[in-house]
């Protein structure tokens, strides 16, 4: 893993976009510069060539002028012995000799070259003769210098003729050359334009191609980002990345998407785990409750219990123990109700009957200390409520409200109509309830421990939940307490049907 990364980093030398753009620009600039330089070089060469075309003619003209000057100076000297003339002659002769050096002296198979050679040699002969003529003039050898002059004059004519002819011929050649060069120049103008156009097109394609390497990964990255934004995390970015900033961003993006995926998987897993734990806890609680119930149920075989209790009642009657008979009969009725109507919906009347039985049984235990008052609107007692709802409330009043008070213990049950509904109010004169506790009960926040002391497993909490579920509303119960030792009132609101 580490090795491959090292290898990768070795292979991928970072080249920034700036460097790339600089490289592209330099390349294009170099191409254009090179082509332009070459074109300029060519045009320059052509112009130089054109400039040179008539060079040979100019040279021949100079030769002719030089020759004429020599001849005139010689004539002048021979005529007048003028010192200026001899000076001019010598100067021009030197000049002329120098100019002659430009002529071809080799035997070449070109007519003009041969003519140059002939001119060169004739000029040499001519100068030789003129020198001799001047020498003879100085030596006053009249016959000789006249003879020399004649042959010099003759040669002068020939050389001039040669120069003239050569000049003509060269002019013709040069004109052809000039024509050709000029047409070449014209041609090169158009072709250079074409070449420049071509190079521009070439550069355009090069730029497109080279910048594609920069923009393509960006486009790809943008597409990938779009996909991710739409929620597709399962994207596959190309493995070959440019070695520049875009490459780095792409790497980072890739890493981000991968991390995102991993994170989401982890989150899912932990959520699943949590919900599984909650379920287990719930199951455990349910099972515990079931177990408790089963335990209670297993302890008391109802038929056996009732039969036993009935037998006890009969025995009490036979012995004339009326109160005992009464007590046992009540206990039997209470449990029968419990067993029979545990999960059913019952009438308010049946519930109140159960409370009568319960109070009777409890009063036996409390030696009749508990006073139970009923104020019931008989028209309302047929309303339906869930079973085992009033008894737990009364039990709660006894256990938590009035058990430990030394004064007269009083429980009042009233059923009356209120705000278009039935209100079942159970009031005690016990220790009362703190606001805190009321709040806890109402919001079902009682600890498991708080409920443990419920005798038959049906606590106030349970009652509240069942009432709420049954009537499908929240405000079914209200607990009020004026303060410590001021008693507690539990009001149950039953909505009237229709």
């Amino acid at each position, binding site marked *: 893993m580490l090795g491959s990364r090292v290898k990768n980093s070795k292979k991928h030398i970072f080249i920034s976009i700036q460097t790339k753009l600089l490289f592209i620009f330099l390349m294009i600039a170099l191409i254009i510069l090179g*082509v332009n330089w070459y*074109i300029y070089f*060519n*045009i320059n*060469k*052509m112009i130089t*060539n*054109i400039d040179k*075309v008539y060079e040979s003619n100019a040279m021949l003209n100079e030769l002719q002028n030089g020759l004429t000057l020599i001849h005139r100076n010689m004539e002048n000297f021979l005529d007048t012995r003028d010192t200026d003339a001899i000076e001019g002659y010598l100067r021009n002769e030197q000049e002329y000799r120098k100019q002659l050096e430009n002529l071809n002296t*080799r*035997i*070449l*198979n*070109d*007519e003009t*070259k*041969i*003519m140059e*050679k*002939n001119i060169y*040699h*004739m000029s040499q*002969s*001519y100068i030789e003769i003129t020198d001799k003529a001047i020498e003879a003039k100085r030596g006053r050898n009249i016959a000789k210098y006249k003879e020399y002059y004649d042959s010099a004059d*003759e*040669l002068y004519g*020939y050389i001039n*003729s*040669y120069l*003239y*002819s*050569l000049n*003509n011929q060269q002019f013709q*050649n040069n004109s052809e*050359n000039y024509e*050709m*060069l000029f047409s*070449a120049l014209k*041609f*090169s103008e158009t*072709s*250079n334009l*074409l*070449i420049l156009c*071509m*190079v521009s097109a*070439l550069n355009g*394609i*090069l730029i*497109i*191609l080279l910048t594609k390497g920069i923009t*393509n*990964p960006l*486009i*790809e990255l943008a597409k990938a980002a779009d*996909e991710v934004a739409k929620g597709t995390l399962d994207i*596959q*970015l*190309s493995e*070959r990345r440019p070695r520049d900033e875009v490459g780095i961003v792409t790497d980072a993006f890739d890493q981000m998407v991968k991390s995102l995926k991993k994170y989401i998987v982890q989150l899912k897993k932990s959520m699943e785990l949590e919900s599984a734990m909650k379920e287990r806890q719930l199951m455990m609680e349910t099972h515990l409750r079931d177990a408790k119930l089963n335990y209670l149920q297993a302890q008391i075989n109802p038929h056996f219990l009732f039969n036993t209790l009935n037998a006890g009642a009969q025995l009490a009657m036979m012995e004339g123990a009326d109160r005992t008979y009464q007590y046992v009969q009540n206990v039997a009725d209470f449990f029968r109700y419990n067993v029979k109507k545990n999960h059913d919906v019952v009438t308010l009347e049946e519930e109140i009957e159960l409370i009568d039985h319960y109070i009777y049984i409890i009063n036996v235990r409390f030696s009749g200390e508990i006073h139970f008052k009923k104020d019931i609107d008989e028209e309302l007692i047929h309303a339906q409520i869930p079973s085992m709802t009033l008894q737990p409330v009364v039990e709660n009043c006894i256990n938590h409200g009035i058990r430990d008070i030394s004064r007269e213990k009083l429980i009042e049950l009233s059923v009356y109509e209120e705000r278009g509904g039935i209100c079942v109010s159970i009031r005690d004169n016990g220790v009362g309830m703190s606001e805190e506790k009321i709040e806890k009960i109402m919001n079902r926040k009682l600890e498991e421990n708080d409920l443990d002391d419920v005798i038959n497993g049906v606590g106030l909490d349970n009652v509240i939940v069942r009432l709420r579920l049954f009537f499908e509303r929240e405000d079914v119960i209200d607990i009020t307490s004026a303060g410590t030792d001021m008693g507690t009132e539990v009001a149950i609101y039953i909505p009237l049907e229709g």
Partner: protein
Amino acid sequence: MIKKDPYKTNHRQLAIFAVIILAMAVMTVLSLAYVGKWAEGGGKMNAQPYESFERHYVFIADSEEDIFWDKVYEEAKTYAKEENIYLEWEGSNLAADYSKAELLKIAVASQVDGIVLEGDGSHQIQEAVNEAVDHGIPVVTVMTDSYDSKRQSFVGIGNHNLGREYGRQIIRIANKNTKDALILMDTSMESSGKNLVYNGIRDTLDNEGNHLNLELKTIVLNEDSSFGKEEAIREIFLNKEELPEIIICLNEKDTISAYQAAVDYNLVGQIKILGYSDADTILNAISRNVIAATIVVDAKQVGSYCIKALDEYIETGHVNDFFTMDVNAVTTNNVKGRLKNAGEQGEK
């Protein structure tokens, strides 16, 4: 799920682009090279490599327009080239028209290595030749000699030989009834070798043609004015009473003039022309029986011998005084082969 690897599709695109770029680059480079060559084009003429030679001979002949001399010059030049010698036709490039004597002086002043000269009997030429030789430049005369000059050698047909060949042709075309034959001479006759031609004809007729009663006449054509000779020949044809039966021309121009006059005055068949040189016109005339025969000199042989003679003199210091060239007669019998050759040469 990104559909495709964008780089993968780029491979084909890349290849196409690469091909386009390569093609354009190649085109650009080629056109640049082409333009560059164009730019060089101007210097091409100057850049052409010249052949260098060891010696420089000049060729001086009177009649530049004469096909025979053209041939001799070309043959001599070709031969000279093989010997590493440049042969220049002196005066052909000059605007001025110089006489042979003047051209000789120019050649001397130009310090050439050797001179091939169509000589004549004039005194000026003789002097000019002597001057050249005095300057150490060897001179070889060709076809026509310059008598009594210091020229090193003469390459010619030998006018006596020529005369004999003419004589033979006269005997071939004449019969007992042929009364006369007219020889067209030119002014320089007396001094040049052309009188030897006459003698040659005379001798041949005397020795081999004694069965003929033929009178040999000569007429000297005046060359003073530019077109004098042609007019003089027409004069002969116009004077029908004195019309000769055989007319003998000693050069190409005269031959063509005579032939043309014969055609123009409708005298073909009445007058027999003996011509000189193998110009196409003359050969064609022979094949149509307008000209009876023509005497031909081998230009190649003449050309090469001129160069050979000069070379020999320069290399050894002496050379034969006289080189005799072969003379052939072209008649209707052998004209076909010549015409074919001439045609081929023309095509070349």
